[in-house]
């Protein structure tokens, strides 16, 4: 099954043109951007592989949405403006929770981690997409929208639009957008924080399009001039093998379970970096250590309500 309007496919020429533009302008010294050749190859290769993997799994997830849609609660017309506004908000909130669970629980982190494995932050990084999202089953989170009554094709289009929106924010070329825009929307500045491995920036800014969800659910962290973002994961990868990028966390999970099968649930669904003996670091521990060592800065940081604060400490 497929839909006629696929935002990601339509935007591909735009992706290519803007990566060219970013490289050329950076080379000319007009904007800030760094590209490492092998890193770029991996990011783009992951993007292509993700499209191929998507073709294999999209049929199944779309079929599931169509099946759920049969039992819909309401008949929501695809042609009504209010329906699109409602879907925009609901889909974006779904994305927030999908993204948050993808960082806070290792099983879903295993699928999402690849997006964070680059130590660079440029437009090519945006295309470093998962190959194993179908396996991780996070597409289930979007089924309630079809159950509510949004046509599956409409949901798929909105998901695509969200992904296309998130492309342009992967850049260091734009420092800040106007204040009103930064207040409402996810921006390059907010998403740089999300890709940063500095302890104070870990597990923050899960937004898709609207940053308001992070402000609402206590995970917002503004980018600070005094703390430059260092990109990547807590334990950065040792090379540019694309299969390692795609599968290393899955392999790590399997190795851990084989070694200590009685901790299978913890290895699967604990926060990334969890271990039975506490010999590894979770984001929560790294953040606590940082706060203890930098009390003044921690105090000055935006207060965040108590919430599970874990992950990015991939093994």
């Amino acid at each position, binding site marked *: 099954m497929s839909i006629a309007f696929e935002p990601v*496919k339509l935007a*591909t020429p735009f992706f*290519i043109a803007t*990566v*060219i533009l970013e*490289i*050329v302008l*950076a*080379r000319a010294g007009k904007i800030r*951007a*760094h*590209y*490492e*050749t*092998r*890193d*770029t*190859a991996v990011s*783009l*290769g992951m993007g*292509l592989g993700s*499209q*191929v993997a998507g*073709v294999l799994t999209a049929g199944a997830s779309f079929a599931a949405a169509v099946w759920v849609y049969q039992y819909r609660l309401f008949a929501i017309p695809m042609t009504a403006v209010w329906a699109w506004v409602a879907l925009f908000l609901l889909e974006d909130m779904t994305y927030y929770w999908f993204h948050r669970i993808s960082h806070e629980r290792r099983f879903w982190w295993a699928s999402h981690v690849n997006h964070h494995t680059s*130590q*660079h932050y440029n437009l*090519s990084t945006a295309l470093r997409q998962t190959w194993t999202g179908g396996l991780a089953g996070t597409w289930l989170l979007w089924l309630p929208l079809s159950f509510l009554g949004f046509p599956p094709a409409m949901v798929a289009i909105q998901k695509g639009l969200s992904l296309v929106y998130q492309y342009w924010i992967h850049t260091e070329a734009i420092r800040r957008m106007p204040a009103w825009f930064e207040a409402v929307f996810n921006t390059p500045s907010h998403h740089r924080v999300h890709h940063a491995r500095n302890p104070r920036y870990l597990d923050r800014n899960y937004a898709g399009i609207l940053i308001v969800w992070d402000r609402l659910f206590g995970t917002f962290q503004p980018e600070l001039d005094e703390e430059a973002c*260092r990109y*990547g*994961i807590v*334990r*950065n*990868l*040792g*090379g*540019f093998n694309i299969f*390692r990028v795609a599968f*290393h*966390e899955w*392999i*790590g999970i399997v*190795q851990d379970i084989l070694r200590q099968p009685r901790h299978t649930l913890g290895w699967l669904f604990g926060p990334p970096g969890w271990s039975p003996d506490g010999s590894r670091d979770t984001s929560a521990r790294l953040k606590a*250590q*940082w706060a203890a*060592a930098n009390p003044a800065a921690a105090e000055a940081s935006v207060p965040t309500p108590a919430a599970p604060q874990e992950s990015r400490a*991939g*093994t």
Partner: protein
Amino acid sequence: MNTAFFIQTAASGVAIALLVALAAWAKIARPGSPLTDAYARALFAQEFPGRILDGVWIAGDGAGAVAKSGGLALVLCQVGDAYMARQLPWAQALAASFRDGRVRIDLADAGAPCATLVMPAWPPQGLEKVRGVRAA
């Protein structure tokens, strides 16, 4: 899957090759220099905040470093224009294989299975002078 899909995939593959070639031509990776003692210590401080380093050994080509910190070995390895870091028990690092001027440290990590560093000797020279190490 149909012909259109294969054509699209092939076209994307060609586009990727061209973009990677453009990135290589542009030479806009982060400017880096080989590790010095001070640079390595700064990176260790960033990666392992608060850890006291008993000794630091820089790889001969400046592409990595090993530090001893109590019972731990801290390892830095260059990856492209950046670095990755790992820690492991010092005894495990000492047991690493050393051949042709390279020490190959098993990191037991799916994301970075091993670190290979150019070293004049292994165990590292001057280890006996390091705090906490008794003369053999």
